[in-house]
């Protein structure tokens, strides 16, 4: 069928693990927009959901770090973190190995993506799923872009990865949804945790909403680190979704810094 839904959202573990420490009005504002994202996702009646995430040493380490990887299994487990710490219980999440293999075959024509037949989801996937598919009844195909251990893939390659994913989706009979999940500026799990560069975030999001290829892919990693912290490297997931949906209008449903969540909480959707 093709791509039937696309969007972006935050995934910080504090969103579920430290929810009680955020102001009620503040967190409900974010949660309400996440529920709206879920409503739109369900209205698109997808057969599978690709989650482009930026995992945090749950499966991949510096002994063999893929720049890009897609999951190719019929099921996954998560969260890998302590349930109480994350505020999300252990669960089995359905996958779709057959669809994943077909997608990978197409993407490989453009991008040397790795595949994994075993994958334990960390908060980068589980937090979005907690809001979007809390019954874990929609097959998920995880995709990872290395945003944690430099050297990192160039932003223009992340865009290209999105273009390739889109082309791969277009060639399948299934109805496929795509989300990118990451932080904008943030300094997670460092002494600067809670610091957020709101101006930088808003400028990036303006570029994301406008589909500004040059603006979104023009940051050097040194600039991103200086202005947006090491967490800012995760904009690759947003750039990927922008590449997958080039030319389509986008809507920013929510952006607000929530320091105890250690990130500017974001929800955006694409009008396909």
């Amino acid at each position: 069928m093709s791509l039937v839904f696309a969007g972006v959202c935050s995934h910080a573990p504090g969103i579920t693990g430290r929810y009680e420490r955020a102001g009620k009005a503040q967190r409900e504002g974010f949660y309400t927009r996440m529920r709206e994202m879920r409503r739109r996702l369900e209205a698109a009646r997808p057969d599978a959901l690709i989650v482009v995430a930026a995992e945090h040493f749950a499966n991949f380490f510096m002994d063999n770090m893929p720049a890009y990887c897609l999951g190719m299994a019929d099921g996954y487990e998560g969260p890998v973190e302590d349930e109480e710490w994350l505020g999300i219980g252990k669960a089995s999440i359905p996958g779709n190995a057959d669809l994943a293999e077909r997608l990978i075959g197409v993407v490989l024509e453009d991008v040397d993506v790795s595949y994994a037949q075993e994958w334990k989801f960390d908060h980068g996937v589980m937090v979005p799923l907690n809001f979007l598919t809390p019954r874990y009844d929609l097959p998920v195909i995880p995709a990872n872009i290395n945003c944690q251990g430099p050297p990192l893939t160039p932003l223009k390659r992340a865009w290209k990865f999105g273009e390739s994913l889109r082309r791969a989706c277009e060639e399948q009979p299934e109805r496929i949804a795509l989300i990118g999940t990451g932080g904008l500026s943030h300094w997670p799990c460092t002494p600067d945790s809670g610091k957020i560069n709101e101006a930088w975030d808003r400028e990036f999001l303006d570029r994301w909403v406008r589909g500004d290829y040059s603006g979104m892919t023009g940051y050097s990693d040194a600039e991103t680190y200086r202005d947006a912290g090491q967490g800012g490297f995760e904009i690759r997931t947003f750039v990927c979704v922008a590449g997958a949906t080039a030319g389509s209008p986008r809507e920013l449903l929510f952006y607000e810094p929530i320091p105890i969540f250690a990130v500017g909480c974001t929800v955006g959707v694409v009008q396909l």
Partner: protein
Amino acid sequence: MSLYYLQKLIYQLNRDEHVRQRYERDFEDLLADYPLDDGEKTALREPDIGLLYVMGVNGQLLMHYAALCGYEWDEYLQAMRDGVERYGPVRSGLYAMTET
């Protein structure tokens, strides 16, 4: 200085139940499997979360080790701040990229 193996031990400890069982049963035996220097082993044993941060351990790994060692979230953040105060700026790894 073997930041890679220091992080690898913590990574495996975070993710592998068998490694965690070895950690609980005989930490010294587990440490012997990794080419760590004495300072790194001491920082792990203490644990000195602040020093591990200054040595360059990525926070995405370190926060789980701190939690395993009983640190609450705010205690973990404070331990890193104390480490920088006591030992100076981060010496290696991602956070040494452009220290401000």
